[in-house]
């Protein structure tokens, strides 16, 4: 009797299960799926039309360039934007999973430091680029040159009094009046410190830091506003930033140091394990191409790395100092040690 009951139970369970399976299958509307598949098919982006770009540029810079790249090549670009330091970390992770093609933006010293992350690629117009900053083995390609310049507040500083050279920054009258960002957070600030020691001399670096008088800004973005509003009298920043703000109406003046200045470019490079390396090459060709370089100059006040572009008015010929990137990288530890010993962090 109980065996019989078990049999019935089994049958009932089987029927229930079977029927519910059928129903579950019926849940997915095949018509709906077909429609979805068709739409997906229509807008499908094939692999050869894809590119993944990690960029540390600002949206206003990378977006018009990347969109023009899309328009011209028909390649869809997936964009990951962020700060230089963290983005290099992300690229390292993405490279392992073959999920990144291009690192776009960030000083070439950062690219130099992370050479193992990239595969060499020579831009189609490599011979037309400023040879000083092209990587010998093509691990990275410079995008635009960004000279270090001084700025001063027109209302508070007379033209004659304005600092004209790196040496001038050591003057007592600028003590505590120089807008300068913490090198711990700003790569540019570190480059400025290295530039100073390479131009003026390592032994004068402590004088310069002392002359800041513990007045340190937390980010480089605060330099221009704090000079504009008179918090500081002078500041050290990049040509592109200064020009842009002057165009926007800030009452400041830009000065190219008389000893010459360091003009480190930002770079672009193809990442190891790039899943769309062919398109990545196209992208490097595109950003170093004539039109993009010209556009970057006219729109973003960035000095082109191409030699065949006539500089527009406002881009003075500058005396460039050969900057020893390797030396700068080596002395990083000692510079920071010095910085930390002289600057008392405000709590």
């Amino acid at each position: 009797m109980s065996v019989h009951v078990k049999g019935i139970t089994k049958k009932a369970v089987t029927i229930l299960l079977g029927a519910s399976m059928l129903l579950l299958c019926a849940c997915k509307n095949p018509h709906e799926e077909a429609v979805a598949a068709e739409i997906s098919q229509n807008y499908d982006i094939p692999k050869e039309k894809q590119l993944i770009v990690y960029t540390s540029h600002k949206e206003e810079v990378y977006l018009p360039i990347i969109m023009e790249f899309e328009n011209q090549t028909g390649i869809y670009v997936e964009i990951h934007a962020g700060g230089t330091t963290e983005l290099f970390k992300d690229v390292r992770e993405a490279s392992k999973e073959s999920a990144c093609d291009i690192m776009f933006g960030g000083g070439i010293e950062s690219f130099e430091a992370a050479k193992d992350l990239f595969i060499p690629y020579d831009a189609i117009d490599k011979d037309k680029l400023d040879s000083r900053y092209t990587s010998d083995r093509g691990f990275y390609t410079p995008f635009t040159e960004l000279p270090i310049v001084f700025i001063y507040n027109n209302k508070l500083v007379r033209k004659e009094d304005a600092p004209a050279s790196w040496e001038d920054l050591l003057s007592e009258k600028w003590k505590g009046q120089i807008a300068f960002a913490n090198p711990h957070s700003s790569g540019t600030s570190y480059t400025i410190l290295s530039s100073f020691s390479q131009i003026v001399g390592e032994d004068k670096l402590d004088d310069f830091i002392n002359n800041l008088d513990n007045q340190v800004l937390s980010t480089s973005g605060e330099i221009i506003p704090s000079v504009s509003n008179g918090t500081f009298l002078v500041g050290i920043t990049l040509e592109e930033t200064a020009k842009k703000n002057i165009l926007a109406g800030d009452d400041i003046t830009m000065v190219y140091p008389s000893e010459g200045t360091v003009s480190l470019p930002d770079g672009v490079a193809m990442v190891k394990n790039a899943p769309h390396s062919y398109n990545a090459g196209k992208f490097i060709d595109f950003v170093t191409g004539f039109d993009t370089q010209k556009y970057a100059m006219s729109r973003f006040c960035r000095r082109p790395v191409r030699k065949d572009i006539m500089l527009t008015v406002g881009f003075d010929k500058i005396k460039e100092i050969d900057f020893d990137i390797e030396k700068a990288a080596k002395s990083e530890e000692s510079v920071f040690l010095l910085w930390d010993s002289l600057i008392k962090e405000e709590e």
Partner: protein
Amino acid sequence: MKKLLIKHSFKKKLFFIVLAITLSLVIFGGILTIQGFQARIKADHERDDMVQEEIINQRIEDILISTENVLDAISESKTLSGAVGPRSKSAQDVYAALYEVSAPIRDFSVVDIYFGGVSHYSSGRGDATRALPMGYGVLAKADKEMGKTVYDMDPNDVTLSGATLIIARKISDYGVGSYAVVRISEEALKKELTGAFNARDGFMLTNEFFRPICLAGTAEDGINLAKLRKNFFKRDVYNKDIKENIYIKNMKDTGLISIYITPPAFEESAVKAGYQIIIFQAFIGVLLCLLVASRMSTSISRPISILTMAMKQFRKGDFDTKIELNREDEFGQLASGFNKMTAQLKETIQDRVEAERKVNESRIELMQAQLNPHFLYNTLDTIKWVAKANQVPEVATLSSSLATILRTAISESQFCMLENELDLVKNYCDIQKIRFDDCFDLEIDVEKDILKAYVPKLILQPLVENSIIHGLEGRSDGKITVSALKIIKEGEPDALEIVVKDNGKGISDEMIALIESDDPSALEGHLGLKNVNTIIRLFYGKNYGIKACRLDDGTKITVLIPFSLKEPKGVMS
């Protein structure tokens, strides 16, 4: 215990059957209902969505067409297409013409005449930096073909969440080229589309790379656009991870894509609630099934247990057992059938007891007749020897015959062979001859092979006695014939027919009627005949017995019994 167990399993069986039916109805019915409902609402919803999408796309199309018309008008206007060039008109004339042609679209757009990358005439108010790069972006596109309308986004005003739409056309080859440029800002477009879509919906206008020009309504956060783009990029199904309904449409050959987004027809919570109700119903169903199963099994097992009890009682000898169920279903029928059966059985058993009692009565009478057989026996033997010694041969014969009869009569066995019975008849006749002075003859006419057949003992003697006493009364030449025949009939067991015939005065009609009346008590006073008939019927049933008929001279009495060469079992043994 066993009863309980059976009842239990019966309940289980019932429970599972009822459960299976109920659950399948509740669950499948419920799911079907929900899904049917869902499908229906979805379809309705989709239809509404399509209508709404049509409206907004129509609005966009209107904007594009009117813009196209303005560009056509600018191209055709010599004043405007030649605004910068050798035959250019005065600025006032150009502006007048520009305002005139741009009137239909000026609410939502700014129309410029560019010479190279620089705007020379503008219908807009201020003059913010509206320089466009040459050889890059929209002007590069427009440069490719004179007079062709191109669509792009203003590189000066582009973000990840929207951009100013530029619709441009090259209108003159003179110098670096003149271009008519129409700008529609994100805000203006949104304003134009206000009211064209439901508050719960979203709308996106993008370029062919899904870069947004305008994100409006629920699409404003750009999350769904990012998901959509990611799905296309990953080559997944386009609406993976997107709950909302997405309708994508290419805006003709403009390279623009309009995407309409509506919330899902069914909130997930509603569907979930539906399924929860089903689960609840299933739960109630289980409880109900338990109740029904226990009720039904009780209603079936209770009468069965009553029946079982009644049968037990009946087995123990209570023939008056009756069941009262008060039900009119099959169990009621069963109970009344049982009652009828017990009643009938009781009757049958009573009949049998009665029959037994009667046989016993006969036996008691017989036994009462059996005084002290040995004493009688020895006495008869003594008489025989005394008679022989005293030379009285009749007395010797008498006592000798009587002894023989006596031996047969008192023997334990109820049957004897026909030859023994015939011997007894002979001895009896010897005695009667002496008594009645030799006034009759006995003739025995029986085939040899029948002699060995078994018959109930003492069935012939009473018949012969009847003939001698009643038939041959007062005659001196009486004759009694005893004959026997084996009767073979197809389909019936063999029978033995013994006939006792006399040539006496003949049996009376009255007697014949009494013999054939089947009522043994009617033969009162003819103890012999009555006994014979009773014995035969008790032994063999009502198909056998004696029959009498009157001949021309005398009486014929026929005894019919089954033919058997083996001693049958007696009723008493």
